[in-house]
């Protein structure tokens, strides 16, 4: 056996001999899975079917649509003179012109629109977005919008006067049928006051005039359809034809990628977070006992005499505690993922599509989180020596910032060891949707692996400091 493995085996043997520690490790797994299960079981937020966009992602598709059929190539033009909101105009409130193959949920589309705060945009298929003219729309600053179809290619234009047009962008809608629906739409998503954890549904009212369609038009009259999806709406949509080419419409909803906290307050991964924190507590107490027991009994002097290389002594203990906690973490997370997804689905909760690599990242990352936490507590134990102080320090470093973060903003979850919880983030984020991107809703202020790296840095720093202390202090 290689010399470096001897102390490692000695530490594992010490761990294995004390049966209560093995039992406690099983307790950590049990606590993790049980709390995840209870958390999922308690959550009841049933939602209906959620549409899926052309790219396979979950989408919101709820708006007021006044439309007619267009056969073959053609052009749709309209002027927007007003956009207002109740109770507030949401930054991503939208009013404009749209072209789509049918009025089904999650259908392909291309649209040019004025928005609350983001100027004119050309968007297609939920995820693509290009900016046009900036500024808000109003009576003194009306906006002209134009969509023109040539085969599969839809081109969007904007103008301030209806004579000088600027091309914004063009989009290709693959497999677009010859006859499509085209017309005016209005929708308005939830708006968020600063610091709010949940949004308030809003509605937007827009005035259109100079509406004209050129091309093959099998049916002349305009039809109004409320495209109702799963998005929470503020009021029932309305539309009124003021004259042959002028309309007033009110709509509520969104045409955008779906993110967390919109249709359901419950983030499926929250159950896993709860389980992790409970298991973390068990791991901290267990590791603190493991790390300080030899100081209490005085056997640390025997151990240090048997292996005079003190840095190695600490490293082996960190490896033993870390790998065992990681193994418990992998097992528990894998079990909890299977169980909570099953329970949440049975409760009617909506689960975002989850990729295989994403799931693997949560399972491996959570195991590593518990392992790094255990290694950190080993270092704290070697520095502080007393079990009560070690446990308190571990909890203060690994749990407390998560609570304080809710009080003082998210920066604590960026710079403290709790940043590692970002490894459990699974929800999609979109710059096209305003939402409360906060940890309780499943969004963390750092990227997953960067968050885990923050914890790893703390662990490395603590182990270095502890090794230095161990070398320079009497046992």
């Amino acid at each position: 056996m290689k010399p470096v493995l001897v102390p490692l085996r000695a530490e594992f043997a010490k761990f294995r001999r004390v049966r209560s520690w093995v039992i406690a490790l099983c307790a950590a797994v049990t606590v993790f899975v049980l709390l995840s299960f209870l958390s999922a079981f308690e959550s009841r937020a049933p939602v209906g079917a959620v549409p899926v966009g052309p790219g396979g992602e979950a989408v919101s598709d709820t708006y007021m649509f006044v439309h007619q059929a267009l056969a073959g190539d053609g052009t749709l033009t309209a002027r927007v003179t007003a956009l207002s909101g109740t109770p507030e105009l949401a930054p991503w409130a939208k009013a404009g012109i749209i072209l789509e193959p049918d009025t089904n949920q999650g259908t392909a589309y291309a649209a040019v629109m004025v928005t609350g705060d983001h100027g004119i945009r050309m968007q297609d298929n939920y995820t693509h977005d290009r900016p046009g003219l900036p500024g808000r729309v109003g009576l003194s600053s009306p906006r002209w919008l134009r969509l023109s179809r040539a085969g599969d290619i839809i081109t969007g234009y904007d103008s301030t006067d209806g004579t000088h047009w600027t091309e914004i962008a063009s989009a290709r809608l693959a497999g677009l049928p010859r006859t499509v629906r085209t017309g005016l739409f209005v929708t308005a998503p939830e708006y968020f006051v600063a610091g709010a954890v949940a949004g308030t549904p809003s509605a937007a009212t827009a005035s259109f005039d100079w509406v004209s369609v050129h091309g093959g038009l099998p049916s002349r009259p305009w039809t109004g359809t409320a495209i109702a999806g799963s998005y929470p709406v503020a009021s029932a949509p309305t539309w009124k034809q003021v004259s042959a080419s002028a309309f007033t419409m009110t709509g509520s909803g969104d045409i955008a990628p779906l993110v967390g906290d919109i249709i359901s307050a419950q983030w499926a991964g929250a159950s896993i977070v709860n389980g992790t924190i409970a298991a973390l507590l068990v791991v901290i107490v267990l590791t603190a006992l493991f790390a300080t027991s030899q100081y209490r009994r005085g056997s640390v002097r025997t151990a240090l005499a048997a292996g005079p290389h003190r840095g190695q002594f600490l490293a082996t203990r960190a490896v033993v505690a870390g790998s065992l906690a990681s193994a418990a973490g992998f097992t528990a997370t894998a079990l909890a993922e299977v169980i909570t997804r099953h329970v949440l689905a049975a409760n009617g909760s909506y689960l975002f599509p989850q990729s295989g690599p994403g799931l693997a990242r949560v399972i491996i990352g959570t195991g590593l989180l518990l392992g790094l936490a255990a290694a950190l507590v080993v270092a704290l134990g070697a520095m502080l020596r007393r079990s009560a102080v070690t446990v308190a320090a571990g909890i203060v470093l690994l749990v407390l910032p998560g609570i304080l973060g809710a009080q003082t903003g998210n920066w604590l979850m960026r710079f403290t060891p709790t940043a590692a919880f970002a490894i459990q983030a699974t929800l999609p984020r979109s710059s096209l949707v305003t939402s409360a991107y906060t940890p309780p809703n499943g969004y963390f202020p750092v990227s997953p692996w960067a968050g885990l790296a923050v914890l790893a840095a703390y662990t490395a720093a603590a182990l270095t400091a502890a090794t230095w202390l161990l070398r320079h202090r009497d046992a």
Partner: protein
Amino acid sequence: MKHALHAEWTKLRTLAGTVWLLLAAAALTAAVSAAAAAATRCPSGGCADDPAKISLTGIYLGQAIVAVLAVTVVSGEYGTGMIRLTLAATPRRVNILAAKAAVITGLVLVTGAVAVPVSLLAGALILSGHGIGPSRGYPAISFTDGPVLRAAFGSVLYLALIALLSLGAATALREAAAAIGTVLGVLYVLPIVAVFDGDATLTRHLEQIAPMTAGLAIQATTGLNSLPISPWAGLGVLAAWAAGSLVVGGILLRNRDA
């Protein structure tokens, strides 16, 4: 009882760690409070900030150190075997627990009485510098103001109740790591579970019965209507936790071999 009290005071006074832990509790409470105030910004105005509550954020950390001290008072004696001597000297075992409770409560009250006003003063100074002060319509942090006084007194009492809760838990569990893990678990983990729970009704119920969220309702000076539990009722919940923990600890101490 007087002898027991004197004995406990002597033991605690002569322990090297006691003074350091109390100093650390006061210093870190004030430091974290000041840091929380420094991190609070409201550039556009109209934020739902409670200046007194922000200025007392340090209690979140201070309570952990108070809990360590209270746990050590009991678990330290079990660790060294001193407890057998203590029990032999005072055969009425409940008196020992009462004496420990009295001594630790006194020390924590003094510590809190230093840390809380310092935190509030620092917070008032820093927050008004950030525009979160009376000039923008926020309530002033003034010691003549009823709600602020209640928050200040309540926070000191809160720390004392945390000490009693920890004392009872340590008497029941004996082992220091298990006791501090249990106390901090109940204090910190219940609120996180409440936050990460999607069900609003359940979250509210958890916040009403969890000792930390209920007890810290005493710090609120604004938005009293949206609290999960009213300030004094909240402190009452924590007091019930502390009393329950002391009763369990007392019964176990009386009926169990040391």
